[in-house]
């Protein structure tokens, strides 16, 4: 007799390093990205006329000369876009109407038979501006002296957890008032007070933003886009244009890197408005690399003031934080990053007294969007350096100091929420051990100095409380499985995870599962967005539910055919088996055609289609005055990173020799892909720590090319990166899993800053830590002549 224990030992793909479902297609040049889709000779091309002023009234637009250029089909302006658009705060028109608010703000668009003609036509559009005084600094922008950028702020539609302050440039003000900070300072043995200015950086996906829109005579809108968020784009574009969501179809092929820049709505809506002017014809808008740098969402700049203190035994007693986020001209996401930084403002530490004011401030800079880490890399950059300084100030080892203070299971968080089971302490111990903490290795050359640094992190998925996922699991004639999801494959491996989860929950081999790789809002099940490192957890739950639904249907069918109880049956390796009768039948044939009853009594069953969804139901609101509430977020992923650096005393060049990182992912569905995220994130973190800064001068981006804006290349990557997986399960994650995609670059800037200090005894606090900056700091400290 087959026992349950025996058969359940059939290989499960959970926790196994199966190959990626998308790797082969991507390796042979067959994977389709938005720019690869073919639209035939009817395709038209669009280019965008952009504001050259950071802040100006638009007095007049005359497109008559552009329209007269042979080959030009249409011009669109703000006159065509009266509606507002925005994810959390609807503060933007698709094309500017009366006012332009950043250099790059779309003022008009041209559709023509070729890109060249569209580009020529841009110069023929006459725009009369009246320049207005600009705001380039968020702290100044928040002051009463600053010119007002959004006089209509009080009239904008806004989500109920965002708190704009009409009559100012403050688009959101998030407060934490926990304990009594003022009383706590007197009990502190040491207090550190620091300010950090974290520069804007760009996402730099290698695939530029591309959108193709077509509007039929009946008014049906189809948009093909390189998109992390087809459903959010459908929703927001429909609302802005006064359409039903069912009239808008968004089709999203593979995304060639997103990192947040292809979430929400940015340039995609421009293509739709332009296509409305030339009904029936597809219109393609593809950003140039230069436009990628200055017109797409940026990682916001941050001015962060920290004050923190501890007692003589190294226990953190109080923190007072003021964050001024450079939200830019509009706040697609900035308002929610401000909130996320607020409710996570203690960092991954237990602090009894916390006062935080986190402001999202309108400026005349490019629009702040989500970027890998969603505010956390910027906030941790300063916070984790302060923690280091405080440890040194009371004469305690920085690892020991973090061990004492880091957040532990059951402690009360800064919002009043109770911390769920977390492996942060284990991550810290393992990262410190792996880097050889406390051991000083000799430098590779006499003119170099070596140092080690460590930093912790935490991050919760920042999203509306009820962001939902759904999934479909359909079975094919031969028993293979087609999984449909609305979450995107942007390189992080979501489709592979989807296949593993479906295979495991259903009971079929992993290689029987295919994941539909062209998302389509008309046919794919709903997914809020591919952001917040939420897919493995949220979409994973939906897939698991859909697979279990299909499994239930199959077991009920077979039970009926065999006159058995479904409870005695199981699906193992693609076969239904009975623990009672020891019967067995392959899924092949029965999952579409059903099962014929004996003695020609007809058939039972029918095509099997499982459906499942998931939505967190337990997140509560927070008090607008205190930021307190029972459950601020779904969960926190935590981790630690440590690096070893060498500083060249002749040049100031910092080299990261070695990196280690340990993250608590709950359960690694695919350990190798978790490690790939940890490695890739660390290198992106190194890139932002050592090289990257979007140089803005009077609102103009000075380095809008790969030559002037340097990202890490093959020669900048450390020799060795060690990724360590810690698994303390998440109670509502599939098999206990929680996300890891963004977290891996959160602690890198401060880990490197702390390592530089360890190497040379000088704090170079504000990234990027370029050779020049480090050398000048060494000169000032009289380390070099």
């Amino acid at each position, binding site marked *: 007799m087959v026992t349950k224990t025996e058969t359940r030992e059939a290989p499960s793909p959970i926790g196994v390093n199966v190959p990626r479902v998308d790797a082969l297609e*991507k390796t042979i040049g067959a994977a389709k990205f938005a720019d*690869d889709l073919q639209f035939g000779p009817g395709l038209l091309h669009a280019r965008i006329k952009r504001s050259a002023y950071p802040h100006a009234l638009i007095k007049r637009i005359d497109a008559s000369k552009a329209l007269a250029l042979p080959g030009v089909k249409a011009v669109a302006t703000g006159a065509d876009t009266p509606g507002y658009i925005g994810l959390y705060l609807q503060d933007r028109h698709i094309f500017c109407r009366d006012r332009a608010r950043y250099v790059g703000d779309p003022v008009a668009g041209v559709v023509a038979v070729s890109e060249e003609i569209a580009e020529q036509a841009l110069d023929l559009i006459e725009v009369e501006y009246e320049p207005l005084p600009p705001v380039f600094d968020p702290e100044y922008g928040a002051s009463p002296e600053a010119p007002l950028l959004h006089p209509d702020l009080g009239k904008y539609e806004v989500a109920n957890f965002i708190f704009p302050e009409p009559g100012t440039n403050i688009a959101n003000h998030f407060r934490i008032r926990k304990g009594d900070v003022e009383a706590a300072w007197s009990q502190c043995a040491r207090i550190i007070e620091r300010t950090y200015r974290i520069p804007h950086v760009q996402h730099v*996906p290698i695939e530029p933003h591309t959108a193709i829109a077509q509007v039929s005579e009946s008014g049906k809108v189809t948009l093909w886009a390189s998109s992390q968020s087809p459903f959010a784009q459908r929703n927001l574009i429909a609302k802005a244009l006064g359409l039903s969501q069912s009239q808008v179809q968004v089709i999203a092929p593979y995304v060639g890197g997103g990192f947040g820049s292809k979430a929400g709505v940015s340039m995609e809506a421009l293509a739709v408005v332009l296509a409305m002017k030339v009904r029936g014809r597809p219109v393609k808008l593809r950003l140039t*690399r230069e436009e990628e740098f200055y017109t797409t969402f940026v990682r916001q700049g941050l001015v962060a003031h920290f004050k923190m203190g501890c007692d003589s035994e190294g226990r953190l007693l109080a923190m007072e934080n003021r964050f001024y986020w450079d939200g830019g001209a509009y706040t697609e996401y900035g308002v929610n990053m401000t909130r996320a930084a607020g409710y996570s403002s203690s960092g991954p530490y237990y602090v009894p007294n916390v006062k935080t004011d986190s402001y999202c401030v309108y400026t005349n800079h490019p629009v702040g969007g989500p970027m890998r880490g969603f505010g956390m890399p910027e906030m941790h950059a300063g916070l984790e350096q302060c923690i280091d300084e405080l440890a040194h100030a009371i004469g305690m080892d920085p690892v020991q100091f973090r061990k004492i203070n880091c957040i532990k299971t059951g402690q009360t968080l800064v919002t009043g929420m109770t911390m769920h089971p977390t492996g942060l302490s284990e991550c810290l111990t393992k990262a410190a051990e792996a880097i050889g903490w406390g051991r000083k290795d000799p430098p590779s050359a006499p003119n170099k100095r070596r140092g080690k640094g460590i930093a912790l992190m935490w991050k919760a998925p920042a999203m509306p409380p009820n962001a939902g996922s759904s999934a479909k699991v359909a079975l094919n004639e031969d028993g293979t499985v087609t999984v449909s999801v609305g979450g995107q494959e942007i*390189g*992080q491996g979501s489709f592979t995870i989807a296949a593993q989860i479906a295979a495991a929950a259903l009971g079929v081999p992993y290689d029987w599962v295919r994941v539909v790789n062209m998302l389509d809002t008309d046919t794919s099940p709903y997914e809020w967005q591919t952001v917040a490192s939420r897919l493995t957890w949220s979409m994973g739950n939906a897939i698991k539910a859909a697979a279990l639904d299909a499994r239930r249907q199959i077991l009920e069918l077979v039970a009926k055919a065999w006159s058995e109880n479904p409870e005695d049956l199981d699906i193992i390796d693609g076969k239904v088996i009975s623990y009672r009768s020891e019967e067995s039948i392959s899924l092949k044939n029965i999952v579409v055609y059903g099962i014929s009853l004996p003695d020609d009594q007809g058939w039972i069953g029918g095509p099997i289609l499982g459906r499942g969804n998931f939505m967190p139901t337990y997140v509560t609101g927070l008090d607008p005055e205190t930021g307190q509430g029972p459950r601020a977020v779904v969960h926190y992923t935590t981790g630690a990173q440590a690096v070893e650096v060498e500083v060249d005393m002749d040049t100031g060049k910092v080299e990261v020799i070695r990196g280690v990182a340990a993250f608590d992912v709950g359960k690694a569905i695919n350990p190798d892909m978790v490690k790939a995220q940890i490695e*890739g994130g660390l290198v992106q973190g190194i890139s932002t720590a050592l090289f990257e800064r979007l140089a803005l001068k009077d609102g103009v981006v000075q380095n809008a090319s790969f030559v002037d804006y340097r990202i890490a290349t*093959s020669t900048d990557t450390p020799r060795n990166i060690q990724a360590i997986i810690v698994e303390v399960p998440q109670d509502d994650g599939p098999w206990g899993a929680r996300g890891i995609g963004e977290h891996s670059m959160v602690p890198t800037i401060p880990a490197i800053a702390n390592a530089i200090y360890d190497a040379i005894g000088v704090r170079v606090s504000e990234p990027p830590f370029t050779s020049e900056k480090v050398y000048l700091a060494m000169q000032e400290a009289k380390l070099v002549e």
Partner: protein
Amino acid sequence: MAIHRIALTVNGEYEQVDVPSNMTLLQMLREKLALTGTKNGCNAGECGSCTVLLNGEPVNSCMVLAVECDGASVVTVEGLAKDGVLDPVQQTIIEHGGVQCGFCTPGILISSRALLDRNPDPTEEEIREALVGNLCRCTGYLRIFEAVKDAAARQRALVSG
């Protein structure tokens, strides 16, 4: 704009194409021959996504005019696998997890193939140098280096075996 008829070999196939004077090799491959495996990441010779082999040498195809390719032999990512058998660099980049979003992958594969054609046993330093013109924002590169080393080893085993 003058139109030129050129003849060339692409992935072993003879092609005749009519191209305007200002059309790049990248545009010709993608728009005239629908070989969209070669990607356009910057159109300025800076990111390496459009790397192809031109007469055996790796070039940024966005920096080469199509008319210059009359009589040339071009290999794109679509031409790496032969008779359903992957090139060793394709096989190993899959096995080592060197693919994430996949947009830079075609250019990385072509640059790697070019490296192994001229140097069957490269050091990691030489691999890093060979790939310095191919930007990748996802992987952090290390798995790609491992894949190229492994591909080199397999290729040498094939040759000697």
